[in-house]
């Protein structure tokens, strides 16, 4: 992993405003989050986070892609504009690992700054709840789909 600085605060804010999780926030609120963020770069195949050893950071993918897997099964892929690392921040630890599948560039928010952003901005907190709910719903739908496929076999 490399810590880089390729974007200015406003450039980061402009990028974040185009993503689903930040688009409902006001521009200056996103800038206040962006100023506390940093940037990471990962090479293809590099391990980003692993289970309880997770770095406890919130990432939004600027470029590239990562895959979240457990026991070799990939259950989520995050590409440009998508986030990962939310569940460990909420102290929900699994054995999943996050690995970059191509050269990946992310905006990173440390645990402390993420919690501060949630405390200062109810709209951001609401967006996070919505994101977790959407993730849970997608997982449930996927499980249902797989169960149907299994039953039909």
């Amino acid at each position: 992993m490399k810590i880089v600085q390729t974007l200015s605060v406003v450039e980061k804010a402009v990028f974040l405003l185009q993503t689903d999780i930040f688009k409902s926030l006001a521009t200056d609120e996103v800038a206040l989050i962006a100023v506390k963020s940093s940037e990471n770069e990962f090479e293809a195949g590099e391990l980003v986070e692993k289970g309880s050893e997770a770095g406890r950071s919130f990432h939004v993918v600027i470029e590239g892609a990562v895959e979240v897997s457990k026991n070799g099964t990939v259950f989520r892929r995050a590409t440009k504009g998508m986030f990962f690392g939310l569940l460990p921040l909420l102290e929900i630890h699994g054995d999943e690992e996050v690995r970059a599948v191509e050269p990946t560039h992310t905006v990173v928010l440390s645990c402390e700054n993420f919690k501060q952003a949630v405390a200062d901005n109810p709209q951001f907190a609401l967006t996070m709840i919505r994101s977790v709910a959407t993730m849970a719903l997608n997982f449930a739908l996927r499980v249902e789909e797989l169960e149907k496929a299994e039953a039909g076999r």
Partner: protein
Amino acid sequence: LRVSLTKTSWEFLYFPMTDQVKRKAKRFIDVVVNRSGDAVAGVLILILNFLLGGSLAQLTVVILGLALVWFLLELTTTQAYAKEVSSSLGRLVGDREEKRISLQDITDATEMTGLLESSNQAQVLYALDVLESMDPEVVRAHSSGLLEHPSQAVRARTLAILALQGEDIELYEFKAELPGSDLSGEDAVKVYEETAADRVAIAASAGRVVDSEDQEERLIDLMGDEDQDVRRTAYRSAGLSRRRSFVPHLVNRLSIPEERARVRDALVLYGERTVGMMGDYLQDPETPISVKTQITTVLVEVGGQHAAYSLFRATSLEMDRRVVNEALRALNRIQGDNPAVRIPRELMLRDLRQEIDRYCRRIVQERSVRSAADPNLATFIQRVLNERAEQSLERIFRRVALVYDTNQTLAAYRGYRSDNARLRAQAIEYLDTSLPSDIKNLILPVLEAPSEEEQVQKASLVLASDPPTLMGTLEEFLESRESWLNTCGLYVIGCRKFKDYRARVETFSNSQDPIIRETAGWALKQLEASEEAK
């Protein structure tokens, strides 16, 4: 006059109606209202002639009397109509008051009381937390057992709850009750200070008497204690003491999210004694915005005319927009709870006119920015301007609500912001019947405009100065007191490589604001890179 003016004016009144309604209304007015009016007038003249002789002077007096009755009737009807429009809006928009669910609704007190007997520390602490807000009497009833609990965290929490409920926590009596406490004097105090429970006791007793600098410093230390029960008891003690010297320390702790609720409660205990100081904190540019937001909540809790004046000072257009938004919301809440609270009408109407000008300016600017060459940049700046216009519109309604009926005006705001055409029309109707004509003439044409194009045109007419151009907008961003607009101006210069602005960008390089400073540095790099490329 009757044919040329009155008849024509009557015809104009029918214009907004649909053909079907117009036909029915005209028929009814021509056949029933006009003829009945003529008949009543004839009868009145006959009665006048019969009873008084019917001289011109007598006729004039009667007509003047009737005109006065007509005028009063019109005034009452307009007010009643405005009220009806607003209450109808209120019904349609719905009551946006937060519906709080109390712990009592979802928890069983008996179950929680049972948990107090548990030897498991986590269970007892949980029960104490729930019972504190649900039924503190239960905690009081079980206090003797809880204060001898083997866990010092349980003892500390119990003491803190008792102290927060206003119970006298006598430090030395408590010491005597502690198991194995045969110490006395200085030795006892040292042992006491080793546990959180004891520090809570010290913090609680400090609330009654703070009469030396040592005690004051001790309490300030306890406000920063590692244990939350000690901290919150210390906050309350500071609030109970009502000493002004604690206020800066309390305000400082408002910046910590987990502490805010307890610190606010402590500041509210000061009552009106510190509302002036709170107003000064709102004015101070060094106070963080998150702290200012908390201060507005404290002022709402304190309420009353003095708190309203402190907030009103923070609603000036020169203040940071976020502070103005919070202060206006807080003022609306205070007035909503207590309509007797008054705001200087002339000053507020002056600010309202300026706010309308600012709103119209943002609308016109948003349109001028669309012509920018870089579509991504244009989209971003448009979004910034749209946000500012939306916030400005909210402030317009909130300022109107300070002068006119608070709840009715806020219902009109929600109606105007809804997607429902009927609600929007009712909101405009309410403003039309409530606002004085000079303000109405400024804002209503903009709000009523059926299309975006027309809205920009109407907004341009309202502006006191020339409509802003793209470069004019950039200038305004750089000159703004709002740091985020300065930042956006610097970003535009960097993106568009406006080398003529180099000197202006350099003036922002040493700004106190980290975002401005960073963006200015970035913009300078962009300008240098562009010059090197040439």
